[in-house]
């Protein structure tokens, strides 16, 4: 069984009398450790798919099984618990809490898990060091650049040692140079911990970091192919052919 299995997924929005098919019929399998890019234009349903994979939205029909759990059928409380234990999030607009220092922002997921302040500060410090922000621990988000803020966001996504990290246009607000830094950081952290990364973007340059690119058009999978030339910033070597997509 694959780490993530999506079968017959459909999402219909109602806009007044009209039905809008955001997702028509999605079937997808993603393996543990895979870096999967969901590519699509605005309105292709890529964000809807991500939201449903993360359990933020209930599908109209279909199943989403992550790590053996059908999250489409979980209660609100169990979903929260599931997110605490399995998922990390990286947002386009960082979504850090402005009143909190970067240390506190990174520690937040651990706080929701009920960790003591001492324990979560220790973990958060480690993560901040790992993203190269050791000297910015006491800074507030508005005292940092966009790239730094997004690195805090990445630290926050990885701090609870999740199984899967969702990234929604993580570099949408960043310039080219910073985009490369941030993408490399994310890929590196995923590889180190053998995490699954689901990357949603409309940007082909970003997609090149992924092992596999799922192309969505109008709520359907248009193409699902291995990235023949995975850009691996660590080996500087193209394409690892041993990694195969599940479907």
């Amino acid at each position, binding site marked *: 069984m694959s780490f993530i299995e999506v079968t017959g997924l459909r999402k219909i929005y109602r806009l007044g009398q009209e039905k809008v098919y955001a997702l028509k019929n999605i079937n997808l399998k993603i393996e543990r450790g895979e870096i999967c890019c969901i590519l699509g234009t605005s309105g292709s349903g890529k964000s809807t798919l991500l*939201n449903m994979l*993360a359990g*933020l*939205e209930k599908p109209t029909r279909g199943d989403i099984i992550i790590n053996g759990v059908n999250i489409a059928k979980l209660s*609100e*409380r169990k979903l*929260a*618990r*599931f*997110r*605490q*234990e399995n*998922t990390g*999030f990286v*947002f*386009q*607009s960082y*979504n850090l*809490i402005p*009143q909190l220092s970067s240390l506190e922002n990174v520690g*937040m*997921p651990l*706080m*929701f*898990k*009920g*960790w*003591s*302040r001492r324990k979560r500060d220790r973990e958060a410090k480690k993560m901040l060091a790992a993203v190269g922000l050791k000297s910015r621990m006491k800074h507030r988000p508005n005292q940092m650049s966009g790239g730094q803020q997004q690195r805090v966001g990445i630290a*926050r996504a990885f701090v*609870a040692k999740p199984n899967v990290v969702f990234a*929604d*246009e993580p570099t*949408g607000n960043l310039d080219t140079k910073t985009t490369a830094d941030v993408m490399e950081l994310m890929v590196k952290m995923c590889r180190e911990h053998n995490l699954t990364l689901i990357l949603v973007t409309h940007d082909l340059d970003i997609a090149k970091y992924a092992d596999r690119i799922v192309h969505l058009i109008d709520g359907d999978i248009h193409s699902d192919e291995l990235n023949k030339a995975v850009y691996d910033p660590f080996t500087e070597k193209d394409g690892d052919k041993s990694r195969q997509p599940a479907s």
Partner: protein
Amino acid sequence: MKLFDMIIMCLRNLWRRKGRTLLTVIGVIIGCCAIIVMISLGQGMNAAMDNMLASWGDLNAITIYGNSRYIWVGDGNSNSEDKPKLDEEALEMMKNLDHVETVFPKIEVDSNYVTVTAGKNGRYKANWIEIYGVDFSALKKMGYVPEQGDYPSGDDTLHTLVFGNEAAYQFRDSKKRGQNSYTYKQMLPDGTWSEPFFDPMTESVQIYINNTKKPNDDGTYQSGGRAYEFKMTTAAVLEQDNDWQTVYSLMIDMDFAREIINSYNRLNNVKDATEPEFSQIKLWVDDINNVDAVETILSDLGYNTSSMASQRKSMQGQLGVVQMVLGCLAAISLLVAAIGITNTMIMSIYERTREIGIMKVLGCFISNIRVVFLMEAGMIGLLGGAIGTVISFIISAVMNTLGNDTFANMFGIYTDGSSPISIIPIWLVLLALAFSTVIGLISGFYPANRAVKISALEAIRNE
């Protein structure tokens, strides 16, 4: 999420909008102050009322009146034949009632029946003095305290007298005319009390039974003869107390009182004379809260009862209405404060929509979000309650110092001038704190529910 983290988060959120939090808290302070001060005025009124009633008589006592023609009690249609007799049998029944501790029967000797004289040749006379036949052995238990002399004791107390504190002032000097023949108890300029015409402890006192066939010019009667004259020994003069009946009267032995009544009836050929009944029985109940129950039993049996407790009840009822009105006025201001809290919390939710969404996405339980919001609202209430309590104590102290009259007149409330007009008991403090916190929680309930319903998607959508 740990409770401590939620408290920190709640405080941080309140602190973030200091000005708005402060204004909302002030609303609660005003409401809380209003309620505490109003209730404290009510407490003051109750205390003043209890003081007043206690000065009138014993709150634990019930008095049962007999079928005397002097005492008009009840519905006005009371026919003495319908009423149960107040005899030894009734006394025994009352003694055995639950909660009754002591019974103290009295037989009233009609002031028309006898004349009391004192001094040589009966110089000092009391024609209309009240005489009660009592059980001397119970005097001490009843709380009568001798000012001079001692409780009557010994085997033969049949012809023993006990003077009420001002009884001796009821005698007039038959050798003087006009105003000079009367005296009364008053404070003299040098601070001592005026003296009666004679010292009851040393002067000899006689009682004779009136012969109604031999009236004097002044409306008094002559003695029925040697057989109807009794030489009395005075045992004690009682201290001043709050029993208005005995202050001006004489007490004699119960059996002697019966003898006098029977002798009077015989001497004056009264028709249909019956064995004298008790004119009054006073009951002491173990607890003030049981007075009502005992009194109800007795009045259901047809007795004419009266107690301070029943008076207290009706007065409390009247005060209760006043207090209710004051309390409602105060409650309105707290209601306004509660709306203020709700308003503040809703504003706060709009500001924090994104934050709440992020928390949800990062795996925060919605129960935790709800608790944080309720805590914030409750904290505003508690803070307002605490500060309001402190300010209430200040207001209360100011009112009590500035004097009773000003404020009492202003609010139209009853005060006897001796007790404070505003009393804040400890339970009121606790009640105010709990109440304002609960008000805060209730006000926060709707906003907290809105907060948890915020969609995580809506909140984190990219703008």
